[in-house]
């Protein structure tokens, strides 16, 4: 079957991959929205949504009840509601940009997934084969580049809405995103300086970073969060800002801007923004896990290869065992996914704990705290790496 898949024409394969991305990210984003409601409820001592149930599940003795209490079916109800709601198109908007803005939001959000590895298996040669849709050399930069296009959706939405709130939201968004992009990029430089040590072939592949963290030994097996906590911190903060999550959700700020850039949106168009935000969050979490949390390695200094060895999931040389490869892939994906989910939970946890910054505070943190910190961090690690690897 795998042969069949690999032998498909590239266009069909591309379509399939794209479909896979949509089919995976859309539900994840939806589930995230549900999780957000549950997590926020739990963090505030509430139950959260626990009423909706589908008849067939209601007939199940315990599972149905459990799923209902967990609010799983609310996801369906929410989705249905968003799909079937009246889709308003205000009279005062610039219709063309107003309509394409949600699409502009969702495309980069989904595209970034393509270059993010989410697991790995060992081929019979013992080589790590990362599971990703497009293994491009410039991996991380591609993520940053494509993700940075997401801002156009907010600018377009805000501008086309032709309303004060929307416009203020989008102006804030563009300023904030441009500001924090610098820190974001600078914060990961030390990681790649370390990975691309002099003498090796330079690469920005995320898989390489994980590979580095999977090596046995002290430095190589260490997760980067231990090696460069400041980088991780700056990256995390910048990530919050880039994904417009609280405490940096300047562009929505429902307290002062009603709904920010999507004030005039409703129904399905609005839900696309919503999904895009969660997709960004998911991908951001994934990148963070890959860069600083050892990717699909189960524990620091415990590479996944060792785990496979313990579990007997090792390919014998010269023999192609799809079963083992699939088992390895599934396990690595599970580990990676668990970490990503924790990160998403962390995002929500912070959101429902920390109050929103004021806009001037956001700008001050970005330019006067985070950027100098990131710059110093880069210089220090450049020197450090030069000294160590001399």
């Amino acid at each position, binding site marked *: 079957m795998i042969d069949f898949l690999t032998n498909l024409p590239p266009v069909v394969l591309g379509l399939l991959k794209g479909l896979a991305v949509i089919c995976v990210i859309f539900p994840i984003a939806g589930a995230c929205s549900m999780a957000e409601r549950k997590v926020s409820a739990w963090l505030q001592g509430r139950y959260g949504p626990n009423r909706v149930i589908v008849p067939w599940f209601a007939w199940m003795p315990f599972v149905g009840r459990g799923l209902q209490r967990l609010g799983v079916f609310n996801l369906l109800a929410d989705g249905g509601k968003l799909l079937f709601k009246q889709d308003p198109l205000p009279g005062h908007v610039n219709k063309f940009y107003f309509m394409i803005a949600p699409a502009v939001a969702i495309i980069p959000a989904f595209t970034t997934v393509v270059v993010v590895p989410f697991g790995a298996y060992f081929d019979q040669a013992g080589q790590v084969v990362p599971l990703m849709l497009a293994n491009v050399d410039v991996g991380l930069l591609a993520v940053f580049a494509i993700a940075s296009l997401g801002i156009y959706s907010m600018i377009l939405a805000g501008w086309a809405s032709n309303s004060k709130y929307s416009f203020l939201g989008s102006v804030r968004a563009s300023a904030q995103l441009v500001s924090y992009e610098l820190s974001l990029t600078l914060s990961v430089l030390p990681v790649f300086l370390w990975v691309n040590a002099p003498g090796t072939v330079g690469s920005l592949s995320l898989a390489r970073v994980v590979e580095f963290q999977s090596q046995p030994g002290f430095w190589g097996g260490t997760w980067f969060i231990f090696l460069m906590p400041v980088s991780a911190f700056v990256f995390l903060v910048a990530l919050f800002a880039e994904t417009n999550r609280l405490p940096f959700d300047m562009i929505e700020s429902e307290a002062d801007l009603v709904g920010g850039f999507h004030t005039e949106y409703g129904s399905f168009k609005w839900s696309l923004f919503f999904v895009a935000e969660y997709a960004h969050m998911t991908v951001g979490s994934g990148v963070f896990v890959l860069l600083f949390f050892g990717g699909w390695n189960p524990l620091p200094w415990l590479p996944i290869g060792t785990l496979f060895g313990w579990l007997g999931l090792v390919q014998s040389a010269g023999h192609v065992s799809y079963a083992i490869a699939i088992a390895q892939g599934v396990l690595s994906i599970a580990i990676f996914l668990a970490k990503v989910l924790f990160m998403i939970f962390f995002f929500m946890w912070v959101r429902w704990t*920390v109050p929103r910054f004021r806009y001037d505070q956001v700008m001050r943190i970005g330019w006067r705290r985070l950027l100098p910190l990131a710059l110093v961090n880069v210089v220090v690690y450049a020197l450090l790496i030069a000294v160590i690897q001399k």
Partner: protein
Amino acid sequence: MSVIQVQRKPLTFAERTYLPQVFGGLMITLRHFFGRRVTLEYPEQRPEIAPGYRGVPTLVKDPNGREKCVSCQLCEFVCPPKAIRITPGEISGDGPSAHVEKAPREFEINMLRCIYCGLCQEVCPEEAIFLQNVYSVSGYSRDELVNDKEKLYQLGGTLPDRHFKWDKKQAAASASPIAHP
């Protein structure tokens, strides 16, 4: 009186980084995450109604099942949002309540207007209207939310009466030599 200027305590470095505060906050929310849920799951679990709660205004009957309201319209008059509408009527004939003479022919309380202030209960000279513990009012149309006399008595039921004013009056009338000339 002199003004005391309180100097704000300078922030320590740790406080200025804001991180310990964020971390403390995260711990607090995490405690709630694992803590007890405080939500009341409404339709199944009902809140305890405190005595003196002002719920939906209702009409009550006395322990003998007699309609207490005499349609004096004081509640209609006092009602700030003008939610009450009474059509007075006469009790004619020789029934047991004939001596009361007056009763509402129609008594409507518009629950879309009612503000639950309790002035109607306060002003009622016959102790016929009470804000009891019904608090959930819903309906599919505006008309449904206008409680008519029948609905009001159904909601109100019977409350103990300490006065029996009209029963005493009837007893006095039957004992009086001049009431029935």
